[in-house]
């Protein structure tokens, strides 16, 4: 096979947050190459939800008519995004016939500390039982995500016939780059979905967003609103503020999660970098962005911000370098990696 051939996407398009945004970008990127078919799955996980806005917009822009819950999905290559949507299913619910099945592992297989993040064995088993393919691959989306896949495989054993793609199936971050401010102030913020896993313990959150900061803007703070946020926090519910307006209110993005959970890619951090902000996160999450995200502990945040505020030139240098590093996650880079999959000389596709 010298080209990508027929490509079919298989996903539940109702995933909120980063997964849907990533897939939407991916479709926009590869559509000119292969005119993918999109098979939508109505899994129990998102019963009652609507398709995520970024995906719906991508479908419309690309003229893709997604096919819901087809009995059979047949293509040369089937790309299944985020197998965790099968975690509440008793079976796969369909047959997949293809040369190569690529399962993009948007969610880490293990949480920090080593606990299984979801029933990976069950999900892969359901896929296995409904798939006839020459090759089945897991496609991690980041170095950390890959590490959890490998650690999971080491503990539970990768099912027979499965392999792991060598290169990351990264989230495309083709975001418009905003120049950094030349007068940074201690204006902090974070944005995320409102889940408990997205927030550090109250004490750490207090260190990240102290009363002495000029501004503390938290978007997606449904949880904090419910538990009663302190007066020095400006809290907005999920999608309660336009992203552009939110970014206009801050100079530093301080993003920590529950210690028992970690971003698999961290698209939200890329958004902060692209918006011209200095982004601070825990060391493990920051590692996925080279030096683009500053790895720290919550008690170190104040000092880091103070140093940048005192040195605007350093602030600008850091942001520009971080933005340049985002090129590794550009649409061009993904297109090249995608095309490489089907290159008979270098590709790994079956």
């Amino acid at each position, binding site marked *: 096979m010298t080209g990508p051939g027929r490509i079919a996407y298989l996903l539940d398009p109702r995933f909120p947050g980063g997964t849907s945004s990533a897939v939407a970008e991916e479709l926009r990127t590869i559509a000119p190459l292969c005119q993918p078919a999109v098979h939508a799955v109505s899994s129990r996980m998102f019963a009652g939800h609507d398709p995520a806005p970024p995906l719906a917009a991508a479908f419309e822009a690309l003229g893709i008519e997604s096919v819901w819950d087809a009995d059979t999905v047949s293509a040369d290559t089937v790309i299944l995004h985020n197998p965790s949507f099968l975690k509440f299913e008793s079976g796969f619910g369909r047959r997949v016939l293809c040369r190569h099945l690529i399962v993009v592992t948007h969610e880490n297989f293990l949480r920090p500390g080593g606990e299984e993040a979801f029933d990976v064995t069950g999900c892969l088993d359901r896929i296995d039982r409904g798939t006839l393919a020459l090759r089945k691959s897991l496609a991690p989306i980041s170095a950390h995500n890959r590490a959890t896949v490998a650690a999971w495989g080491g503990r539970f054993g990768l099912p027979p016939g499965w392999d792991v793609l060598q290169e990351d199936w990264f989230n495309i971050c083709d975001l418009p780059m905003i120049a950094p401010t030349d007068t940074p102030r201690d204006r902090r913020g974070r944005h995320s979905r409102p889940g408990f896993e997205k927030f550090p313990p109250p004490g750490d959150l207090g260190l990240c967003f102290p009363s002495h900061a000029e501004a503390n803007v938290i978007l997606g703070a449904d949880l904090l609103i419910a538990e009663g946020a302190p007066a020095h926090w400006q809290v907005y519910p999920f999608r309660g503020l336009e992203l552009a307006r939110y970014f206009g209110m801050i100079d530093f993005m301080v993003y920590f999660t529950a210690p028992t*959970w970690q971003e698999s890619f961290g698209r939200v951090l890329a958004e902060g970098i692209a918006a011209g902000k200095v982004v601070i996160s825990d060391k493990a999450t920051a590692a996925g962005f080279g030096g683009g995200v500053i790895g720290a502990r919550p008690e170190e945040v104040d000092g880091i911000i103070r140093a940048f505020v005192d040195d605007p030139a350093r602030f600008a240098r850091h942001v520009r370098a971080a933005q340049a590093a985002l090129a590794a996650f550009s649409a061009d880079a993904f297109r090249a990696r995608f095309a490489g999959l089907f290159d008979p000389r270098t590709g790994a596709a079956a």
Partner: protein
Amino acid sequence: MILIEAGERTDKAFDAKLLVATQLAARGHRVVLDDRTRPEKVERYQKYEVAAFLADLGGVTLRRVILIGAESVAQDTMMALRGLRLGADVAVSVVGRFADRQSAIAARAKVAYAIGREPDLVDLATLQGPPLVANAISPLAAAPTPVPPERLTQVFIVLPQEALDDPQTLPVLSAMDNLPDYRLNVILPGKGKEQVKASRHAGLTVFGYSELSPAAFARLADIAAFFGDSVPGERMAAFALDLMRSGRVAIDCTASGGFLAGGAPVLRGPEEIAALANYVQHTVLVNRREIGRQAQKSPWLATHSVEALEQALGLEATVTAADAPEGTAASRSVFLPTNGVGLGHARRCTLIAEAMGPGADPAFAAFPSCVPLILDRGFDCLPLVQKSPDHVEDHANDLLSYLRLRRVLRSGDRLIFDGGFVFDSIHRVILEHGLDATWIRRGLWQAGQTLATALDREHTFARVIVPGEAFAELNSDRSTGTHVHAVGPIVQRLPQPDGAERAARRAALGQMLGREVGELVVTMLGGGVAADRTAQMQALATQLDLRPGCLHLIVV
């Protein structure tokens, strides 16, 4: 302190928490329930049960959190867990019956996100196998209850509300109630108890489902038969489990054979209530102890034991036998005079206590008006709280009395209650602690007075002492039996003052009141809620007022 939480904030989940809290507390663990999780509407009996555990967590040092019903962990529960800001030294256990691997992973993850670290996970499906009650939230673990003293066999029948729709049910139960080989007790849900008490079968001993804790029911019962379509809910399942564990007999009379199907070591009994009397008489009573022994050996029961649950939770029981008292104190006699001002009751109780002789070391629990009198007589006294119109609920003071009494009294203690109406606190504490209880009940019943409520709890007492009154019409009593003992008036005999002293006292009174005092008549006809004696006192006052030199002292 151990905080018991549940995945969801529902009435059912709260009751399940209460079951766990009660069971663990009986094992010597110090347990609390978050008072913010109390449902808006709590049944009266449940209030007594829960009062010992509810706490404002702001003032509590937690060392462990046990989250039951973790199959479904709601947002508000996660919010509450997050708000606790638990230190790293607080162990957190997530307990549930997980249908599959994903359910267990999700439960653990949700709690991990809320508390910021990994909890332990106890899968009851693995530990115990299928539950006796579908969708049960509490772990349903079997705990032993103390070996009761030799007593007439106590048979309990657990019925569904619909059983009362059959016109034959109550007549059949009444017939059983008159069999000499055992004493019958009936447990009914909802309004069933009121329905029976309003019928001509009001003499039956009836409890509501939640009137007592499952452990208290198990302490009282020797044999229990369960009717209905299936296992009648978590409370009754817990009752059956404790019963089996204690070597007593549980009979599965449910239409579905739910206990047997679940694997429990029960007898399969008749589905018809009418057939139960013969079954109990000829099959169970003759082999009662051996049946209990065999049940205790059941491997199924071992997997459902409270020790197995404790081990899975990493809890170390501080008591090894359910009846082990705190400390080594010998059984005590505690007098509880009650009602209104209570001086008549209190005076009588102090007279009896003083007559008990050396070594008895009696103590008192009494309302504030009586406390000085009791202390004056040299007895220790636990103060109770008087009823007040300022309380939000009319039984608020009784809740406090219950808490204080249950803290002070221990299994085997003697409680001597002197009063007309047996409060919930007294009723519960006797049954829960297995107290040797005596009711000193001065008559004062008025003709035509309805006594059903007053006498309904007489069965709680091992004996009833009825002191006589000076007037014959005040000595009518409505209950009989070998446990009822009529005695003469209980009075204090004081030496008669001599003539000179009497003259001096008359003179002193006369000088104080500015009138001649030739004779003193004391009227004390208080009857509390049992009798209104205003008319008699007015008649006496009118007549005595006509007598010159007569000082009439009315004590109210």
